[in-house]
């Protein structure tokens, strides 16, 4: 497995004080929190920083980690030396980082698990994995994010998703199991919405019913459409003569191409609405066409002649408002 340099991850010196480490963590946690940051790797960074803090905030774990030596480099192949933790006593403290969903059992790296996995799990008396008490309890709910294509939402579809489900065996070891689900995507589902699959969460205890599974819907980026809520946006290039003189052009819509009238004098950035041509539903969303005037390249002699002709025959100063 790969060695993790927790000091480097948190961007603190090896001799940083506990206060400095705490401050660094607070700052990084705010920066990379997946609800706050839109960076693609935010969740991963947040977990890494959480793991680093889990070790460095605890003087016992930090001291144990430190005695591995400062010569290790991040990413180096690493195996915990036998009895590496002899003489250290972990009084526990349990997991604090990660997500509150109870789905965070697999959140720590193999590196972390190999060093601190057994020791403090038993010390924490399995607290992190405690299910709801009693012999008949409803299973907990699961949450997962899934990606679909815009077309799936427009037409409805059946899609397979593979989810990683952390499982705890009888000895308290955590393994991640892959679970494949085939799910009907309801027509008209929107970005950020949640689909509830009743009874597909964690099994209940005793006679308690199973929990539910919640799927959060995200759209894969589309090659030409942008989706916001139930509306769909589309950039449509126009020739200068279409924009100047008006035209009837074809534009694609998710339901197939339609004819669209462009009024004379259209400008780049103009937004035209095609009512009801967005995501279907009640009410259906709209399709917004954003015009973008494309200039023909002046690469041939004929084109250059035309541009020079315009220059001479049109009295046009686009910078008149600038006073020059």
């Amino acid at each position: 497995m790969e060695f993790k340099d927790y000091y480097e991850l948190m961007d603190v010196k090896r001799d940083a004080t506990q206060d400095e480490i705490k401050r660094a963590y607070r700052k990084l946690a705010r920066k990379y929190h997946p609800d706050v940051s839109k960076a693609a790797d935010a969740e991963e960074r947040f977990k890494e920083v959480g793991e680093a803090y889990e070790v460095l905030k605890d003087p016992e774990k930090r001291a144990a980690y430190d005695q591995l030596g400062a010569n290790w480099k991040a990413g180096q192949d690493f195996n915990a030396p036998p009895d590496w933790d002899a003489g250290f006593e972990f009084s526990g403290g349990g997991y604090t980082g990660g997500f509150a969903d109870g789905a965070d059992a697999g959140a720590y790296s193999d590196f972390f698990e190999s060093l601190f996995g057994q020791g403090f799990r038993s010390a924490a008396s399995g607290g992190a994995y405690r299910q709801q008490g009693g012999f008949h309890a409803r299973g907990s709910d699961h949450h997962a994010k899934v990606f679909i294509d815009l077309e799936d939402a427009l037409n409805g579809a059946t899609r397979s998703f593979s989810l990683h489900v952390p499982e705890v065996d009888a000895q308290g070891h955590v393994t991640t199991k892959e679970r494949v689900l085939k799910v009907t995507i309801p027509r008209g589902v929107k970005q950020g919405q949640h689909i509830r699959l009743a009874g597909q969460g964690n099994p209940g205890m005793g006679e308690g019913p199973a929990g539910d599974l919640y799927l959060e819907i995200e759209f894969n980026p589309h090659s030409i459409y942008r989706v916001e809520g139930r509306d769909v946006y589309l950039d449509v290039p126009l020739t200068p003569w279409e924009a100047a003189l008006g035209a009837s052009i074809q534009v694609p819509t998710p339901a197939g191409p339609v004819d669209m009238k462009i009024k004379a004098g259209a400008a780049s950035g103009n937004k035209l609405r095609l009512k009801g041509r967005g995501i279907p539903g009640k009410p259906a969303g709209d399709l917004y066409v954003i015009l973008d005037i494309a200039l023909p390249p002046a690469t041939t002699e004929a084109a250059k002649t035309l541009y020079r002709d315009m220059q001479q025959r049109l009295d046009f100063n686009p910078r008149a408002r600038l006073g020059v």
Partner: protein
Amino acid sequence: MTQRTDILSGIIIEDQQRLSLRELCEACAVHAEFITELVNEGVIEPTGIDRSHWVFSGVSLHRIRTAKRLQHDLGINLAGVALALELLDEMQQLRAQLYTLSGSEHE
């Protein structure tokens, strides 16, 4: 958990406009007190005359879960969570405008 290959159908939470306090608690794995505090902060707005008749919209689910994560992960109190949620909403709107008009930033 056995591997299932049946085709599952669910409901879209946000389209479900009537969630009870109990349903919300279960879906978000929080105590009713937490939801009450969020209502008092104005983070979510149920309809219904009093607590026992509260009816929530599906959007509340997402807000409660985000509130819970912010509180738990960043150690901010509920007033701070409420402010963060409002600022995040505003940011999301601005990002959406930027994205739909120019395509310069996704999401």
